[in-house]
């Protein structure tokens, strides 16, 4: 499915690579000659706080993605997916890493982290398509956790929602990477891409299947 516009909301935690991936999507759009705005609010994000970025591909003057406006939610962490959920549109797609990171404030109060499966169920109530996968495990499988952003980029590419050829995104990510790690990035990208394209193909075939749970 090719759309002329796409609002991508990226949600995660400082240090996971959210901003880096948002920038890569923007760079890819510029290379593809598509208008784009990339928004990021940070400052305290490196200190373990929530961090989000928005990418609006297609005609846009601002980078705001407001309530029910995100065509794709790319969530690096399940609790952050839940936080961003009200902004997912009625026909949106959620690509969520199921590996939880317990907030330190939560630890402090010793209240339990919500059950990941129930978070995913909540996502399904809003979004028709949810791909839930332990992307952190895929990144570690590819080489190391630092590649999480590339796995998430692969998931996005496999979703088919980007209104430009995903090769632009792949080369934007390779452009950010050091040459020694290019192979590992390629592996991480492919792992993510295969998971989401297979899951969505299965869903199209009639079953809404989440992988990796």
């Amino acid at each position, binding site marked *: 499915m090719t759309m002329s516009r796409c609002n991508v909301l990226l949600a995660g*935690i*400082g240090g996971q690579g959210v901003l880096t991936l948002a*920038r890569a999507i*923007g*760079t890819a*759009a*510029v290379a593809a000659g598509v*208008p*784009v*705005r*990339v*928004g*990021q*609010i*940070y*400052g*305290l*994000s*490196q*200190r*373990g*706080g*929530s961090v989000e970025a928005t990418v609006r591909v297609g*005609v*846009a*003057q*601002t*980078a*705001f993605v*407001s*309530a*029910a406006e995100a065509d794709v939610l790319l969530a690096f962490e399940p*609790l*952050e997916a*839940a*936080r961003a*959920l*009200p902004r997912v549109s009625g026909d949106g797609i959620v690509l969520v890493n199921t590996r939880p*990171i*317990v*907030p*330190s*404030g*939560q*630890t*402090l109060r*010793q*209240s339990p*982290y*919500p059950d990941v499966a129930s978070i995913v169920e*909540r996502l399904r109530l809003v979004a028709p398509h949810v791909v839930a996968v332990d992307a952190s495990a895929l990144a570690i499988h590819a080489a190391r*956790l630092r590649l999480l952003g590339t796995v998430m980029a692969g998931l996005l590419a496999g979703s088919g929602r980007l209104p430009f050829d995903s090769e632009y995104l792949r080369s934007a990510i390779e452009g950010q990477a050091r040459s020694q790690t290019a192979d590992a990035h390629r592996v991480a990208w492919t792992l993510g891409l295969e998971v989401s394209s297979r899951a969505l193909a299965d869903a199209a075939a009639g079953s809404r299947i989440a992988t990796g749970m």
Partner: protein
Amino acid sequence: MARGARRENETPHPLVRDEPGHVELLLGNEAIARGAIEAGVGFACGYPGTPSSEVTDTLGRVAPALGFPFEYSINEKVAIEMAFAASLSGARSIVAMKHLGLMYAGDPLSTMPYVGTVAGMVIVSAGDPSLHTSPNEQDQRHLAEMLHIPMLDPRHPAEALEATRFAFELSERAHLPVILRPTTRVCHTAAPVTFGPIRRRAAPRFERSPQRLLPIPSNARRMRVEITERLRIARQMMDGSGLYLRKGGGTRGIIAMGAPAAICDELTDRFTDERRVTLASLATVFPLPEDWLVETLRGLETVLVVEELSPWLEDRLRALCSLHGLSTQVLGKRTGHFPMAFEYEPPLVRDVLATTLGIGDAPSPTRAAEPIAPRAPTLCAACPHRATFFAARSVFGPDALFFNDIGCYTLGVNPPLNAGEALLAMGAGFSLATGVAAITGQRTVGFVGDSTFFHSGIPALLNAIKGNANVVAVVMDNQVTAMTGFQESPGTAVDDGRLVPAASIEAIVTALGAKHIEIVDPNDLSATMCAFGRARDATGVSVIVARQVCPVFDTSVLVPIRSRKTPRPADRIVSYRIDQQRCRHCGREGCGQRCSQGVTLEYERAIARARSLERGHEAQRDPVAPCTQRCPLYLCIQGYAAHIAAGRYADALELITDGLPLPDSVCRVCHRPCEDVCVRAGIDEPVAINDLKRFVMDWAAQQETYPRQPTPEAAHGRTIAVVGAGPAGLAAAQSLAMRGYAVNLFDAAEKPGGLLRFGIPEYRLPSAVLDRDIARIMHLGVRFRGGQRLGDNLELADLLSAHDAVVLAAGAGDDVLLEFDGDGPMLTSGLRFLATDALAAPNVIVIGGGNTAVDAARTARRRGAERAVIVCLEDRDTMPAIASEIEAAQEEGVEILSAHRAVRLTPAGADVERVLCRRPGSRDPADYTSAGDAESGLTAQLVIVAVGQSRQPLAFGLGTGRTYGAAPDFSGIDPETGATEHPRVFAAGDLASGASYVTEAIASGLRAAWGLDTALRGRGAADRRLPPPRASRETPCGRSGVTRPDRDGRHRPPELEPRSRVNGFEEVTGTLSEADARREAMRCMICGHCGNCNACLDLFGCPAFFVADGRIEIDSQLCTACGVCAQFCPNGAIVPVYDRGLAVTSTAGA
């Protein structure tokens, strides 16, 4: 980050491409940097502050390639002056900061328009509506008119580039600096930006022109007039700039300024097809294009003003309408259509457009968001200054007031560190702490980071020193400006990829005149806490420089530079993990002694502080502290010491009285085996454990209502007879009453207390104190019947028929009386002497080396004896009496003839001879033989024999064929339960185990009560109150290798003057003062594990910690192996993980 992390063979930065027409995705801030590059900037500087930092970070990166100087200045005022200097020198300059910094630079800024710029000068002051990363949101637009400085407010990133380039032209032509005021949504939105050509720079040179550059009043008056002309030029230039534009049409209109203009643009693009609207928007703030605005307003019936923060434009539009007689209705904040605070987002603007102008969609209801657990930012895992805050709070206590800094350390205000009472501005941590201390006398600690120290901390500190304030000033030096992205400060040891010498904070502090300066590594908790301790005890200004590099900066910048020279150690610690066998595991739990106390922060702080002060914390340790192992009652000594250190005396009381039925007496007469094995003894002196207990008991006695009311189990109708009301019988009676039994307590004497009442003199244990203990036991419902002697007027068979079971605790009975040859002075036993007030003589010999002997000699002195001599077999060092009692006796004039024995009594007294011991320390007389020296004679009218007690001369049968008590044979009594061969008779105290110390007798009573309860109700009920295990005589491991740098001798309670003591029976030893008790309690090393500890979560709050399935865990991905937590973990449960994946622990089961 600025200039530390450049890689070798780095590709040229995209912003230096001289390729007009090239399109690049740039943040608004990067677009500003590119605009400066295209304008041929010749100098750039600033002070980092979100959301402005990428302007300077980017310019810093490209400056070497483009050949212009760049600096992060000390502060914004200096930065603006540096930029102005460049302008006066003919170099175009740009200076960037956040909105707060512009206020700091207000002084030079306000005179700049008078002097005027030479080359173009642009000041970037990023605003932060909605306070994303700032303590306030301020509308800098108000400054422009006041300062006479043109101001631009770009609407989107691409315009930020154009506005910057234009600002340089404007500044140069109008001879005014120009302020560029982007807001967060422009700074941090990236968009495709088209490059223009890069202008060539001329060589800079400062040309003298005093008339033009010196605003002394005579010149400044002329300059003031010139400013008006300069602003006229500025407005003229703006008219042709394209920075304001109008589109659409119709009588309804929108006028928008800055970032919200882009929202309006997008919304009207979507909606104007339906109904027409005029959209006018501006990127210029001052001077306003008044003619253009009047022209816009003239065609409109209604105009909606869309601007963030204050109604700045709205007010000016209304003034223009009034001035020009226009009837346009102006809607905005003043009319209540927009809020006064915070940034605008598209849904808000869309809703207001629909409701006021009737264009676009009607407001749509939004789904209510479900509450999601917040994920607040926190100091990084491994931030060394979490340890600084932790140490400061540990030392200064919960009442000290902390005043904190802007930056990373602001995060310290959050729980659990709570390091911040008030927050104001850079450097204000020092000034607020100084001011509050000066005005209130309260204890304050001020904190600033290293960057802040240089930025504005120095004058605040100098002010404190000059005023001789009583304040502790802490510089948390992580050697970089970390919060905003690792920009260099003068304390940063890296510049442009090379290691350079850093400015010395301590040298500056010394030069300021501070007398007390210490430099510590906060990752060394012990040293840091000692340094804070010295600062706490000092007066005047104490400066602590806590220095440890930011680990993120270290890893990303310093390590790559250093690693060219130094190889990584092969066998290093990569993270820490929790040893679950120790974490929250009470050492006494194995014996069922775990307390039921809830944890308090003060308690956790006390136990964590004790461990933090240690060195060698990884040394071998037992789960149970040595003192507890040796305590016959297995009391949690470290627990009550920690409660006392924390000032929580009621909690200490609970812990003591839960395990000890006669606390008021024991805290006076205990033989203190705990102190013999105290680990602290290896450092200076053992902790005064019994004095601490005494402090708590005397504190409790002074409270209006007794702070601890025990709650016995409900009565279940079973009745027990306890024979003997000495320590063992009283303990058994108390424990049984707590277990719900009805207890009848019998004793031969008329009053309960046994040896405590009749064998311990008043000056050691006042009877009023003993009565307190007994009253509490009687209060549980125990009924006492005196004058009842077993075998005399009390028969076991009768007791058994009237009770469900019997506890025999009738004591060891009379003293052994030695047989002597010859006639001599009067002979009596120690206990009989103590119990009979009338016995006295001018010269007294006491035979024996135990407590009864010492008590007898001291009592003899009080009854008027001129000379009292103790003759004992043992050496002075091996006498069984309590050492401090022996010392006290000597102080009172009692003579001690150790290693001697009495050979015979003589009419004058006794002959004695020196003895040798075959087995040193033996208490068996058979091991002592005559040394062969000449005998000598001692004068005495009274000889007191105190060499131990016999078994009660009482023999009784239980119908089992065995006779008890006839011989020193305890084999028929189970020492764990007191069970005898009769299923309903239990024995306790000396009767069960031979003469022993008071605490051992009490423990025996508690064991008999448990044994009895087990027999009558079963283990399930009995085990709710497990008795102490029998104390080990083996020496505990004692944690060899542990030291503490804080030498602090034992605190001693007050004592009566020796000379006045012998005049009466007043209690000799007093109580520790509260201050001394708390200091003494802080000496405790907390050698055992605590099951109530959550110190890592409750006090430290490192984000690497989390709780899963009720267990504390460490996330190895977040842990950077700083090891601070392992230094304070009271249980030693945090253990290293090495590179090879092997964990090393000192207990089994790793």
